[in-house]
């Protein structure tokens, strides 16, 4: 059963990843991206990491996807004429992607990883353990992360506001 689940999730994830890049409507692309990220959360559940999976869903589907789709609605180009990618670039992109895939595939095929398996006996990682790791050994990282998040929100807000309009509105 787990196999069927895995195959289904793989198809869902990869398929919607392709749709997210290739769909004609940007909005459908956004939705497909959300579905793809949801599929990755499904992988996390299969890999016995439910906390990370829920984190993934809460952050990516609950927040990032909403932001992305909101932005898509905001910036939907008024132009009816859309530029298409040149064929050259497309071919180059596909070739590059396939080359990378072949490289990684051969690497995986030739390394020990392909023979390794998940052990069934090991206990599942508990959430408490994650919390403990987070707060003891990785606590400096937490602080740095706080600075990163704080910087990002302030930066994002400073970027997104419409100062040009403010200047326009001010009486000369």
């Amino acid at each position: 059963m787990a196999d069927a689940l895995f195959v289904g999730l793989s198809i869902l994830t990869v398929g919607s990843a392709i749709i997210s890049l290739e769909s004609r409507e940007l909005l459908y692309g956004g939705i497909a991206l959300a579905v793809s990220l949801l599929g990755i959360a499904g992988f996390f559940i299969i890999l016995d990491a439910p906390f990370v999976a829920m984190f993934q869903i809460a952050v990516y589907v609950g927040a990032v996807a909403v932001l992305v789709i909101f932005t898509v609605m905001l910036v939907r180009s008024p132009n009816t004429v859309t530029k298409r990618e040149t064929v050259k670039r497309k071919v180059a992109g596909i070739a590059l992607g396939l080359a990378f895939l072949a490289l990684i595939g051969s690497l995986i095929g030739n390394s020990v990883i392909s023979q390794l398996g998940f052990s069934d006996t090991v206990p599942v990682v508990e959430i408490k353990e994650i919390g403990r790791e987070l707060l003891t050994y990785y606590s400096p990282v937490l602080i740095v992360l706080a600075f990163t998040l704080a910087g990002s929100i302030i930066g994002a807000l400073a970027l997104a506001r419409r100062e040009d309009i403010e200047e326009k509105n001010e009486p000369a």
Partner: protein
Amino acid sequence: MNQPSDFLIVAAVLISIGIYGIVVKRNALRLIFSIELIANAVNLVIVAFSRMLPNPQGQVFVLFSIAISAAEVAVGLGIMIIAYRFYKDIDVTEYKNLKN
């Protein structure tokens, strides 16, 4: 099926889709999509290895990684919004003055 290598292959496929997107697409939002796909594929690899070893530190790492990429999306979309406001377009080739 269902061995670490399978997860790695799925991740590799996702990464190559992301690379394709970065190379081909000129739409700023699609570029962000591609970056997100790559970041998530990497997360998947980390979690798969964490499950294989088994070691909770991998999951902690992924938590950090997700947090960082959320912040990155916030900033990236902020940049995109302001660029859109200037150029009325989300095509990155139009953003000529950003180079200077």
